[in-house]
């Protein structure tokens, strides 16, 4: 007999077979492997079946398949991103746009369903070119920055990434600094602001800084000092229009009753908040309250008519910073009037 007859024999002797199926150790039996591969599909079918049944029974949408599909999409995207290995590029600030966009689906769900953000005037943000976004800062953790970024990405006709500037204390913290850098944030240093604006990016600054996030609940919606107006000087130097933003709702997410200064100093943090739930309930206390949010983008303040030398004029810079602060404060009062209640 010259040719091997059975399939097993042919597979054993052929060179090709070795390449196609390398020798392996333990493997699950074939039916189980197939089941494992198809399990997500079966689960989705079951959920959609359940959703239809529930709708027929109760007459309204109990399980929204769109939301489920968003979660599925997020998981799928994460798997795809993990598959990139080291073959992706970040910009000089360490910003990874693809990775950030995968997280935006989650933030969009929070934006729409949890805080039910109503955004006005997003058309004031330019579709291209540089701009300096200036907002009030509140809440213990910078969720307001996240929501402004989501608003511009979700509501703007031409989605753009907003690059926020972060207080340097946060850039030294493990995990947080990594996440902030990877999603496009930079250090709150005049140098970084200038460089980002020169690259025609949208830059978000909170001139109140940690004075804004670390204020007590009784001081809510009262703007702090706007630094020394450094943001205006940078805007004039780089000829970037200033867009004031009023955010309402961020004050109530963590009602801060007291601030434990000595503990904060021990951990190198700007403040250590005491809320009704933190640190009493442990990690559960870190879940923000579902207040109703409103974000208003105001008309841009143009600086194009000013010469770059005007940035040295302390009087002009302070006057402009004050006028921006007034616009934001007035916007906050207007939006507070429009809100029916804290959680409605």
């Amino acid at each position, binding site marked *: 007999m010259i040719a091997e007859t059975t399939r097993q024999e042919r597979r054993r002797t052929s060179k090709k077979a070795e390449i196609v199926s390398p020798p392996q150790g333990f493997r699950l039996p074939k039916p189980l492997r197939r089941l494992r591969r198809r399990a997500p599909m079966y689960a989705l079918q079951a959920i959609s079946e359940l959703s239809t049944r529930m709708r027929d029974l109760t007459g309204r949408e109990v399980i929204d398949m769109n939301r489920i599909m968003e979660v599925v999409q997020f998981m799928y995207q994460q798997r795809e991103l993990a598959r990139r*290995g*080291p073959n*992706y*590029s*970040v910009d*000089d*600030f*360490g910003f990874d746009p693809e990775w950030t966009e995968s997280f935006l689906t989650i933030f969009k769900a929070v934006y729409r369903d949890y805080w039910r953000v109503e955004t006005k005037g997003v058309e004031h943000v330019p579709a291209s070119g540089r701009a300096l976004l200036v907002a009030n800062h509140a809440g213990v953790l910078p969720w307001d920055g996240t929501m402004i970024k989501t608003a511009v990405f979700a509501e703007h006709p031409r989605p753009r990434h907003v690059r926020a500037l972060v207080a*340097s*204390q946060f*850039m*030294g*913290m*493990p*995990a*947080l*600094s*990594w996440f902030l*850098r*990877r999603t496009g944030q*930079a*250090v709150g*240093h005049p*140098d*970084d602001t200038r*460089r980002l604006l020169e690259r025609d990016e949208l830059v978000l600054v909170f001139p109140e800084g940690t004075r804004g996030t670390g204020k007590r609940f009784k001081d809510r919606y009262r703007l702090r000092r706007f630094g020394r107006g450094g943001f205006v000087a940078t805007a004039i130097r780089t000829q970037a229009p200033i867009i004031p933003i009023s955010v309402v709702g961020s004050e109530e997410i963590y009602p801060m009753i007291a601030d434990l200064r000595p503990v904060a100093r021990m951990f190198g943090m700007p403040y250590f908040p005491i809320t009704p739930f933190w640190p009493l309930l442990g990690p559960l206390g870190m879940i923000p309250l579902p207040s109703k949010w409103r974000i208003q983008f105001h008309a841009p303040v143009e600086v194009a008519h000013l010469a770059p030398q005007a940035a040295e004029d302390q009087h002009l810079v302070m006057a402009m910073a004050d006028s921006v602060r007034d616009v934001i404060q007035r916007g906050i009062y207007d939006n507070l009037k429009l809100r029916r209640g804290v959680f409605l």
Partner: protein
Amino acid sequence: MPPQRILITGVSNPLGAAVARRLAPQVPFLFGCDVSDPISALEEMDFVHADTRLSVIGKLVRQLHIDTVVHLAVMVDSPRDERSIHETDVIGMMNVLVGCAAPSQVRKLVVKSSQAIYGAGPSDPSFYSEELANWDRYASGVTRDLLEMEQLVSEFALRTEACGVTVLRLGYRVSDDTSLAKYISLPIVPTFAGFDPRLQLLHEDDAVEVIVRSVVGDQAGVFNVAGDGVVLLSQAIGIMGGRNAPILPPYGKWLSRMGLKMLGGIDMPAHLADFLAYGSVMDCSRLVAQYGWKPAFSSRQAMDALARGRQMEQIEPPSPPQEYELQVYLQQRRRRARLLN
């Protein structure tokens, strides 16, 4: 006037040897000095055993009528103790400057410095421009030495107008023998938990190229030199085919450094530990503006080149005829030393 008589200090390290090889055909007289024996033979170069830490270097510069000094005997990435690094960097620089001062004919001084001069910290801006190196920040051993060294150089440059002084702050290099390259190419790389810093790297060829350009050209001042773009530490580890193990605690770096030294035999200087936690990126726009040249390898390409070099089979290059002479010379030296003892 093109340089006629060049002295290269620290010619026995790989960078110095490469610079000497590049400069040899361009100048009539080339001298090299170092404390250890040369690593490769070069017929056009006269090698002198001299220590920059001793004042003999000043006499050497004058006696040989040197007109261009390339000072590469600056230790940044060295397993030696801090004291000997300080001696080499600061005292060595001082002796070289004495040699270059008034009555000598030195018209050009090129000094190798490093990105380590900026240190790395969480509150620093995302990019370091040349004027950001200062004493205000916490400075680890090597950073302090480099700051002191550059202060000496800048004072010298102010005093001596006849001599053009170029200081090159070279980015971190990943050639085979640097401790950064050794660290990144470990099979399992222990990193600081919760940090993924941006690394900016410089390819060895670009480092040689910029030194040669500074010797030949007439640019003066301080320049940042590093590749375009950044590469994240996790990416670099992935490129080298290792595994990222975020197990080092982010606080108390000295403890991690001691642990690595004792358990893994990995030497991680303090400035490198900061670099691997916070990252440091330089702004090289001044270099591009004044030299009209920028490094050919971006940070990513430098990393790829290291990975390729590791994959390729190490083939021993055929030794040139001078190599035999070098071996004979070294043997004679050793024999003479034994006889003297």
